[in-house]
């Protein structure tokens, strides 16, 4: 399957991030056409396109938009640009290289859902991306693309770029809303759902950066064009960010349905001529797969059938030098550090599991504990307040499914004794660029 650069098509143009650069390739053409259409027609268009959320859950975007009640309260669009998932690095490159695609998508989406205020909540640790997007918003405002009576359409919109303060939980959409409102970021009780009572208790649509960036291209080129890529249930293309033990880690935009083996080929294969030990389709929150699963199409439905999820579509690849105990421990340390503390299972469960894994990593533990940890993950998954608890409970059982022996061995022999850490470093040996 060949690559299909759309959002990434002109990333070789060093000026693409500017308004002039973006407009060289037809930028804001979609906006002009969208503003002539009925908002409901746009919602219908996105529904017809079958676009699914690119933030990880894959919820149908058009359907989400259609949930917004028309009850006279103000509507808000919030873009979740708080990309913090370990292994996920796609939204930040998009915002750096093609921020106007995001801005144009924001304006069209706001028009479609009848929002007069849109907020872009960007992870605070990436000031470069914040600057790029803020600059793009400024340029768009100066060009009359944001503001009052945009292009004579009568549509008014203001866009606010907001920097997060470094909490993974704020990528959870309701915690993001709390944070945006100035509160401590912790997930909210649902219902009410954001579509009904979100930001400032008003109907709110929350979309991922990549999802929004798809909008101008779908509006400009049409549903048929979009649906020629991907599958019936997973139409379109995806910005895959391949990382780990590969020769050329990076961004590969390809139709949904491409296989990991193909992506691996584009990325130059496993570094140093090694082989895949395990890989994750989209961030640390999805269950890992092995070399046996390289030919499964990367779609929402096929990944689910394989017992994992497409997630953010940012595959992490690990070769035979990697200790799976070590990898899982690092992820759990992340979840423990980022647990917001609101609910008991996530707060206490990550504390317990991480502590135990850290002992395993150093060769201390019992085989009984290897099984206890699975039970503990079961006491978190489906019992926590938000999906981040589920995410924390994912890596260990998935790893145990394929690498139980390695965990049992770790109860007596440290991970570093089993796997030379120097060999596992991503820069160990020759890495072609």
């Amino acid at each position, binding site marked *: 399957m060949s690559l299909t650069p759309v959002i990434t098509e002109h990333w070789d143009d060093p000026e693409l991030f500017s308004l002039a650069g973006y407009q060289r390739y037809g930028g804001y053409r979609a906006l002009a056409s969208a503003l002539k259409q009925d908002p409901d027609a746009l919602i219908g268009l996105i529904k017809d396109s079958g676009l699914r959320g690119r933030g990880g859950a894959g919820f149908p975007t058009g359907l989400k938009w259609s949930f917004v009640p028309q009850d006279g309260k103000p509507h808000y669009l919030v873009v979740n640009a708080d990309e913090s998932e370990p292994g996920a690095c796609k939204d930040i490159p998009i915002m750096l290289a093609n921020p106007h695609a995001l801005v144009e998508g924001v304006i069209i989406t706001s028009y479609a859902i009848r929002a007069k205020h849109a907020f872009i909540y960007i992870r605070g640790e990436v000031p470069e991306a914040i600057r790029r997007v803020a600059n793009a918003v400024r340029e768009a405002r100066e060009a009359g693309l944001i503001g009052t009576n945009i292009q004579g359409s009568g549509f008014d919109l203001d866009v606010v770029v907001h920097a997060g303060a470094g909490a993974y939980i704020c990528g959870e959409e309701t915690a993001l809303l709390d944070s945006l409102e100035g509160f401590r970021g912790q997930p909210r*009780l649902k219902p009410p759902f954001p579509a009904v009572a979100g930001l400032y208790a008003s109907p709110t649509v929350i979309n991922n950066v990549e999802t929004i960036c798809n909008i101008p291209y779908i509006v400009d080129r049409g549903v048929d064009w979009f649906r020629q890529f991907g599958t019936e249930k997973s139409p379109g293309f995806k910005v895959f960010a391949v990382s780990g033990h590969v020769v050329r880690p990076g961004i590969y935009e390809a139709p949904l349905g491409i296989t990991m083996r193909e992506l691996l080929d584009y990325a130059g294969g496993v570094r140093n001529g090694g082989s895949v030990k395990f890989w994750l389709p989209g961030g640390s929150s999805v269950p890992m797969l092995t070399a046996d699963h390289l030919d499964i199409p990367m779609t929402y439905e096929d990944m689910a059938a394989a017992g994992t999820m497409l997630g953010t579509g940012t595959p992490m690849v690990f070769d035979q030098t990697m200790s799976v105990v070590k990898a899982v421990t690092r992820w759990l340390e992340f979840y423990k550090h980022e647990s917001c*503390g609101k*609910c008991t299972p996530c707060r206490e469960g990550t*504390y317990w599991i991480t502590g135990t894994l850290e002992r395993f990593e150093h060769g201390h533990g019992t085989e009984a504990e290897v099984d206890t940890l699975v039970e503990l993950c079961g*006491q978190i998954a489906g019992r926590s307040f938000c999906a981040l608890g589920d995410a924390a409970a994912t890596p260990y059982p998935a790893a145990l499914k394929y690498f139980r022996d390695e965990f049992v061995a770790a109860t007596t022999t440290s991970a570093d004794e089993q796997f030379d850490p120097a060999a596992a470093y991503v820069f160990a040996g020759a890495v072609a660029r």
Partner: protein
Amino acid sequence: MTITNNPGTDVEVAVDMINVVIDGVEMAVPKGTLVIRAAEQLGIEIPRFCDHPLLDPVAACRACLIEIDGMPKPQPACAQVLGEGMQVHTQQSSEVARLAQEGVMEFLLLNHPLDCPVCDKGGECPLQNQAMSIGRPESRFVGEKREFEKPINVSAQVLLDRERCVSCARCTRFAEQIAGDPMIELLERGAKQQVGTAADEPFDSYFSGNTVQICPVGALTSASYRFRSRPFDLVSVPTTCEHCASGCSLRTDYRRGVVTRRLAWDDTNVNEEWNCDKGRFAFRYQTQGRVESPLIREDGELRVASWSEAIEVAARGLAEAAGRVGVLVGGRSTMEDAYAYARFARTVLGTDSIDFRVRATSAEETAFLASTVAGSPVHVSYDDLETAPVVLLVAFEPEDESPIVFLRLRKAARSGTRVVSVGAVATKGLKKMSGSLHASRPGAEADALRSLDDQTRALLAQPGAVIMVGERIAGSAGAASAAVALARETGAALAWVPRRAGERGALDAGALAGLLPGGRPLTDVAARSEVAAAWGVDTAQLPASAGLSGLELLEAAKRGDLTALLVGGVELADFADPALASAAVEAAGFVVSLENHHSAVTALADVVLPVGVVTEKAGTFLDWEGRPRPFGQVFRDALTSSDARVLSMIATALDVDMPADITSLRLELGRLGPWSGARVAGPEGGSGAGASGVVLASWRQLLDSGVMQEGEPHLAATARPTVALVSAATAAGLGDFVTITGPLGSVTLPVAVGDVLDDVVWVPMNSPGCHIHADLGVVPGASVQISAGGAA
């Protein structure tokens, strides 16, 4: 089905019912019911920590997970609203639910120190209890627990042990949702999450003690009770709070004859499940400075005497002064004691000169109380406040003067009731009730009421509207008349909210000149004969005309027109003119003091007869609603007894029969019941322009120099600082301190700028460093001089 929510009204609210099945039991519940509440009705106890019926659901602790058919994951019962046909399986019928709950319990104990043997909560701890009922017998955790320094003060009174905290957020939600004092908040994240305050801003909420009570673990403890006792060593008695007219239901716990703590007790009609810190923590006065035996004055000195000797001396002295005796009953008396004074005055002393008001009073107020309040049934209740479209406050600061009224008004405001305060200060309390200020200079409330804006007036005309006047209305000429007129014109209900717990009861018991029990006018023939019959005397034996009010009585005593005083439970410093009160007691030839503490009165008295505090006798307080709040005797073997019993002993010595026991008095008063005949005329007119120049606004803060707060240093440390509150314009040129000068002297206080009318200075009435009656010789509404104060 219909449910009547409020027995006081006949409004029937139609409720949609839905059918659900919980653990195989079919039941119908009102739409919107939470699973956990419905299960409670079936007697199924689902574990819970964060859940509290009076707080918004948060579903944080996950202890209450249950299974619902058709839902893939276990749901929190505390937040899950039941739907029609829902099939719920609790831990009783679902292994998934049981394991989910067991898992959460195991997690909760993970970082909990399990220091139960040294924890105050041990023995009454929801974590302990629920760990027993749903937890694993042995922990599988072998790692290290996280550690915190223990304990830390979130206020002088409330201590926090962060290691024990299970992050249920009950305390922080109470502070934010109920008290409106979000001074504590959860900080940090993950296992390091902890309750904390902002730097240098302690949790000095009037309601902070409630967080200690609702904490489901031993994380929050009070300095007052910490390490004092084990719950299972305590004897618990239901009581009523004696500190104000809110009428809180309390539980008093004692051990070995000493009260160790008091808790807010459940009364959905009154205090719900809350009380204020004064009611909770201020009880050590009960054991300090007590009068332990009868005293009589001999050669100018008080000496210990036997009861029989002291009663004999008291009886003889009072008999000699017959017809020239005045009676002062403090506003802290129980209704039965006040009734005994009322009866004693009329039948033994032959006088009608009796007053319970130890504060600023006026003839206008007397007319208002006699015509409108005395003997009337509950016509405005706490529940009525919640449904009122508007509540107009006049000379009344609920947060300081009746804190549970404040909490209920705040709750009402959160669901749409408008609160409007007629006053000079837009207080923080008013803002917490989302209230607005109808500006009135102190003393000019009458004019302000007459010039009320049309919008508020229109709201007052709506059904359910309420006007609440505080006891300070007595000090504002014309205000009571204007409030009565406004209520009459608009149809709004009028409620009088006194500050002291005993005032309403004393009023209804007839401890006021001109007014017999039940609001009966002394001069009404029918009323006189009803009372005479109840008391077993001839109508002619009752005083023929109204006696002297408290103020008149003091003046008469000072002049020598009265030769004896019978005084019960009175602090002379509480009078608007303490110097007059002292002079009167000094001038009176014979003074009998019934007291539990040594006081300015006992120091001047000729006979001092010790009486019991609230723990040593039974009694009743009428709260501001007029609702009886009876309470039993905590210490049954107390050596002291009620005022009523002592008065009966004196009466017996004078060959007059009077019931001695509380039950008889209560029944007698109950049989008399409220007066159904014509009432005295209400107050009319009165100017209400107020004084000119800079005018003093003032009221008693909840925590202040009150004698019943003595011996509570931790409580006192949470009191608000004594400051002079002025507007920015008035503050200009004053600097950091202001000196306020009245006829008797001056005080210098730190200046605080607030939402106050220009040329008004607010100070606390009776707080450390500022006692306006004694220090300045003024009452609220008086004009004072202010000047830059330099350093205090």
